[in-house]
Every structure is written in C-alpha cells, then in structure tokens.
C-alpha cells in the first residue's frame, strides 16, 4: 500500500499502522503540521501534558504497564531538551519508547534558528538510536524502523527528528510491511551448549538461587509464566531486582523478596552464600552487587541476557547465555525435563533451612507508633487495603520508593512502574497518568515523597483534564528523606538543604486543580483515609504526614558486600567507611 501524502499525514498514518492508540505530547511551532493532522482524525488519542518531561514519563508508564511502546510527540528546541530526562530514564530501564520531535526546516538547520537545538546530537548518547529525517520520501520507513529498533532486542527509547519542511512536503507512504528493514536483528535463541551447561549446574547445585530482573518483564508475560514454572519445578529460591518485581509472585513460597542495597536480609545473604547464581535478565547493577570484589564469592554464575554487552560488564560469568529470556527459559525447562527433572534435593533442603533462619531475623520489622504514622506502617496498610484490587503502583525516587518495594506485594508483571537505573525524582506522577490512560478502570496509585512529587506537580492539570482517577499517595516527611539519611550516615548529621521548606497546603493545592485532597496524620485515621482515597471516583492527592526521621533499612552501606547489612536502628558512626563515602 503505497500512496502520496504529506509528511505530517505520514506520521499519523505510520503511527496508526504501528497500532498506536495513544500519544503523549505538547505542541509547538515545529510540529504544527502534525498537530493539524491529529486534529483531523480519531484513531489516535492525544494526551496533552503540561511539560515535555511529563510526556516521556507518562509514555514510560504506558509502555511498562502494557508491554507496548510509548509514543511521545514534542516540538523542537526546548520541547526536545525537556524530554531528555525521560528519554535517558527509558534507556536506563530498557523501556520501549518512540519520541517524535519537531525540528526547524532543513534549510534553517545550523543557523541557530528560533527554537533550534541539535536534537540528534543531544539525544545520541541517551537513545538506543535516533534519526534526522531529511526528506519526506524516507519518513515513513524511518518511523517503521524506529518502532522496530525500540521494541526488538533490549528495548529502549528512539528519537525521530522531523524538520518542519519535511512535514509539509509530499512523498510516497510505505506501510510497515513494504518498508525496508535494516539489518538490526538481535539474537533471540540461546546457545544450546550453554543452556545444557546451565541445566547440568541446576542438577547438581547445593545452594542455588534465581536472581531475576527487568529483562523478564520486558520479555513478556510468557517469560514470567515460564520463570514461575521453572522455580516451582526446581524448588530453588528466587530474588529479584527493583525492576523485576512481579515476574514471580510475592505470595509464592520460593520468594525471598527484593535484593540489593535496601533489599531483604534473606535475599542478600542467600546471594552471598549461594553456589549457583542464575541471573535471568538482570545486569549486576551497583545497587545489587555492593563491593564487587566480595560479591557472592563462592558461586558459579549463569547470566541470561539479550544484550551481549551486559555479559561480563561488571561481574564475570561462568555460563553466559545471550538470548531472549522467554526463549531461553523455555529451552532450559525442556532440556531439564528431558534429562529427568533432577535436582540435589537433600542439599536443597539444607539450603532452605539456612534461608529460613535468615528469614526469622524479620528484617522488615519496625517499631510502630501510636502518635505518628510510620512510613512503613502506611505502606503496610496500603498493601492490606488495596491488594485485592486490580492495582498498578508507581513511585517517585527515594526512601518511599524502597519502602514501597519492601512492603507492597507484586503478584503479576507490568504492575510496578518505578525509575530504577536513572533514579528520576518526578517520574511517578506522570507515569501514573500514563498507566491510568492505558488502564482506565484500574486502581493506579503513585507512592510518592513530597519532594519528588513536587518536581512534576504541573501534571495535575493533565490528570484533571482527562478525568484520570490517579491516587497520589504522598508520604510527607518534610525532608528529602534519602538525602537526609545519607547525611546522617556520612556527613556528621549536617543536614545541608535536605528539608522541604515552604511546602504547599496539599489539600488546597488538590482542590485548586479539581483533585480531592486528604490529609492524615493520626495513625488511627489512616485506614479510613486510604479507603476514602480508593473509593473516590476521581484523582486524589493524599498528604500522609509521616515520621520525619525514619531511616530506610535494611541497608548495605556503599562499598560493603552483601553480608555486611545494617539492620534495625543504625548508628551514624562507622556505617560508611571512607572508601564507601565516594560512592553514591
């Protein structure tokens, strides 16, 4: 199906042919022709955000909760530069996203024209790939290629920069099928020799553990299903990174909880003491490994990853398997079953005994208070009152994010949207908007800190305009809690600029934007407040005043290995040594 049309019309046609139903964007001079086409059609819903960063995070939320690529449309210059944080966030967390940016006309490029920025130059290091479209003839093919690159292999963001004259000019439209494909084709199937080596290791392992990550989620629901089957069949314990929560259900009895800097004691100790580590779609991030030289010293490591550059980047791997998690797990299960479904049952029982002893430490215990709401308590109650709902959770970045990961249970993939790699404060609120757009009838909650939340609070306008009933659950400690915690640990309790001065009256702020505002500070009112938030048919801003100086524990201090965790009430001195102090 080739036909003549303007570049602007091609953009809309290509999006429709790619199955896009929603675009998050903000208009401006250099994308006016595209907005004119959007005005004249009904197949694509455009969500008008209040800031381009909001559009990118909303698209991330949409993508993460649906498995489909998120689409963003912004103008040239400031439109594109405002999108850079969200694009980088999507790169770090491997979120498929297609960002269309307007550009000044081709004849004006390089002349420092009004609202000109070198968008492909600026976004080159923060995209998986990007393109400047210089003529209308190649426009449709470039957009189809952009979707192909964003969604295949390790997903990521791509940028297509569209000069205004290219949008006005007429050219030939090519559909996705007749578009020329590039040679980009990542390896999907794992090497059978390596898979057999992994199965042999599974059969004899005495202290095995599955260490899973966002790659399982990205591989699709079938990969999560296969993972569950493999875990149940082998009886091995499983832990996950922040990005992988939900791939294996939190209610499953093999679940050890999240690992890493603020991970659970039993998960980190099991990682430290294991003899077989099966990394499924995780990347040995520094939040996970702690001190690399002391990381899991006695284990044989298998690493399943679709990105060859993840293998041996941080931690050396004994059994590298390059391929898509779903395909590899399918092969592992098939080979393991065909060889007689063997595991070292006796040793495994002993291993579980040790793990149970670590579990008995109950590292998430906290001292409840009758006077103030402990943030952990707030999340435990949120969990209890919402777990039976069709629920999606987003977070901002900081202490509340880690508490949410610790105290909320995720039973299914694509239900947990958080900024892991880049750690972007201001991510959660716009992400919750993107999730709610994709799932209009679901309960979408953004667990936030007041400081992060304020970074993209302008998106209240978006939620109000589209009647998106997002629930903003703010744990308000009037502090930049994680910064304050580090200053207590590392900088002699000198709390330099880590408190939130001049906070707004959140209830009045909510009402000004047409949200329902709720403030709660008494623990005995908490349950009613949460119920009121859930039951309200519309967006809610919940200002939950919590204990101001609560620390997020357990914690592996920077530069320490997994077995040097801080539990319970920590002491400031000696927590982080001088070597750890330079780390973030």
């Amino acid at each position, binding site marked *: 199906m080739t036909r003549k049309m303007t570049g602007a019309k091609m953009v809309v046609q290509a999006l429709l042919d790619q199955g896009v139903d929603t675009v998050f964007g903000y208009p401006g001079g250099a994308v006016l022709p595209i907005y004119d086409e959007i005005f004249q059609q009904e197949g694509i819903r455009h969500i008008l955000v209040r800031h381009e960063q909001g559009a990118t995070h909303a698209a991330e939320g949409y993508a993460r909760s649906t498995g489909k690529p998120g689409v963003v449309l912004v103008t040239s210059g400031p439109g594109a530069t405002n999108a850079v944080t969200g694009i980088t966030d999507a790169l770090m967390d491997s979120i498929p996203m297609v960002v269309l940016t307007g550009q000044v006309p081709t004849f004006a490029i390089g002349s420092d024209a009004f609202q000109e920025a070198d968008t492909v130059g600026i976004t*080159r290091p923060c995209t998986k790939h990007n393109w400047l479209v210089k003529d209308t003839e190649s426009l449709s093919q470039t957009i189809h290629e952009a979707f192909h690159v964003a969604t295949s292999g390790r997903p990521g963001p791509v940028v297509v920069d569209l000069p205004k004259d290219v949008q006005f000019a007429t050219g030939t439209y090519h559909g996705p099928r007749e578009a020329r494909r590039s040679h980009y084709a990542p390896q999907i199937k794992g090497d059978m020799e390596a898979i057999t080596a992994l199965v042999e290791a599974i059969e004899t392992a005495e202290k095995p553990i599955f260490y899973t990550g966002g790659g399982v989620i990205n591989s699709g629901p079938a990969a999560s299903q296969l993972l569950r089957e493999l875990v149940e069949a082998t009886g091995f314990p499983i832990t996950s990174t922040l990005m992988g929560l939900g791939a294996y259900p939190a209610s499953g009895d093999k679940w050890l909880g999240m690992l890493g800097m603020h991970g659970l004691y039993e998960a980190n100790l099991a990682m430290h003491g294991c003899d077989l580590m099966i990394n499924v779609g995780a990347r040995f991030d520094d939040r996970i490994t702690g001190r690399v030289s002391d990381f899991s010293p006695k284990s044989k490591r298998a690493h399943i990853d679709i990105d*060859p550059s993840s293998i041996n980047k941080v931690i*050396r791997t004994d059994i590298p398997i390059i391929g898509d998690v779903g395909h590899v797990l399918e092969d592992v299960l098939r080979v393991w079953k065909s060889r007689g479904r063997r595991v070292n049952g006796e040793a495994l029982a002993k291993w579980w005994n040790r793990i149970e002893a670590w579990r008995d430490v109950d590292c998430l215990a906290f001292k409840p208070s009758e006077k103030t709401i402990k943030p952990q308590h707030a999340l435990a109650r949120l969990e209890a009152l919402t777990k039976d709902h069709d629920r999606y959770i987003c977070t901002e970045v900081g202490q509340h994010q880690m508490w949410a990961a610790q105290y909320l249970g995720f039973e299914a993939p694509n239900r947990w949207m958080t900024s892991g790699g880049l750690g972007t404060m201001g991510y959660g609120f716009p992400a919750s908007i993107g999730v709610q757009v994709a799932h209009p009838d679901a309960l979408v909650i953004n667990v936030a800190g007041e400081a992060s939340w304020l970074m993209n609070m302008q998106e209240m306008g978006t939620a109000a305009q589209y009647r998106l009933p997002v629930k903003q659950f703010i744990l308000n400690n009037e502090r930049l809690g994680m910064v304050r915690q580090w200053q207590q640990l590392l900088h002699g309790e000198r709390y330099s600029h880590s408190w939130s001065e001049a906070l707004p009256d959140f209830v009045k702020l909510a009402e000004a934007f047409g949200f329902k505002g709720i403030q709660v500070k008494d623990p005995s009112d908490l349950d009613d407040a949460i119920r009121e938030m859930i039951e309200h048919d519309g967006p809610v801003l919940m200002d939950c005043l919590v204990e101001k100086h609560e620390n997020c524990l357990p914690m592996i201090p920077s530069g320490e290995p997994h077995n040097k965790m801080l539990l319970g009430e920590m002491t400031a001195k000696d927590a982080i040594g001088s070597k750890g102090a330079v780390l973030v």
Partner: protein
Amino acid sequence: MPPLKIKKGSSKHSAYDLRDPNAEVLEAHTLAVVVDNEAGVLARVIGLFSGRGYNIESLTVAEIDHEGRRSRITIVTTGTPQVIEQIKAQLGRLVPVYSVADLTVEGPSVQRELALFKVAGQGDKRVEALRLADIFRASVVDSTLESFVFELTGTPEKIGAFADLMRPLGLIEVARTGIAALARGAQSETA
C-alpha cells in the same frame, strides 16, 4: 609427558586464547568495524568511547562500499582484556554496526599507515633527509628549493621512526592517516 609450560598471554597468535580474562595488563587491539554510512555514525562510535571512558589511539574511517553505503572504521584502542571485550560488545549493539572484528586476536593481520612529512632546510640537512627518505622508500611528492614533502607508507612504528629521524633535519609538519588494517589470508573477518 610433562605438560607444556605455557605462560598465559605469552602469544597472541596461539590457537587458544591464553589471555587471562582477569588480567589487569593493558593491551592494544585493532578493531575493524563495518557500519552503515549514515549521518552521525562516526559521532556515535566516538561518543561511545568518550562516554564510557575508553581510549582511542588511532581512528581511520572511509566509505568502502558506495552502493551498499558502508564504511569501515579501524580503531586502535587499549584496555584490559575485560575492557576490550566490553568495547567490542558495546560497538556490536550499535544499530548501524554490521560487524566488529578484533584483528589482534583473530589471527595475523597487516597494518599500514600513510603519512606526509614536510621537511624544510638547506645544504647537508637537505641531502641527508633525501638520503634517509630513500632508505625508507618514501617518495617525494612536492619539492621546492627549501623543502620536501615525503610520502611514506608502513607500519606505525616505521612512520614513527622516520619522523624521529626527520625532526633534527627540519621536520616542520606531519600528517598521518591512522591505521588501515586487514587480516592476512583468504578469509574475510568482516563479511
């Protein structure tokens, strides 16, 4: 029969890769990268090196297939074995990259560089420069009464040696192309 005493890393042209993967020694590797000849592709490759803190000792790029719009980038880089492996993996996942060949480990290769040297002077120095150029099989591509421009092709070591000799004889300007390299034998490393 006693086992052979083979020191790890003793030969880079062994049938086996004897390099210790955890060694901290810096090695120089020549990489041949075939890419789509599209706008920004060189910036993408260079940005990868600067963004991740890798070294570039030499870099050469030119189109090698006009019809297929492909270019070949030859990069000489240094790093520990783990860093070299990481560089190759990072290059390999760039969308416009077709192939990455490590000419240093994949067998013997030929490496050549072309350089132009402008040597100014008169009298004995001028005669000596011409005589040395003859020994190095450099050719004179420009000549005035006070200067020569020599063209020399060879290994980087040969180019460097010639430059060292010319310096006291009036070397005032050098232009080097960087390395072009191919594996020896009938096989193509980048096909």
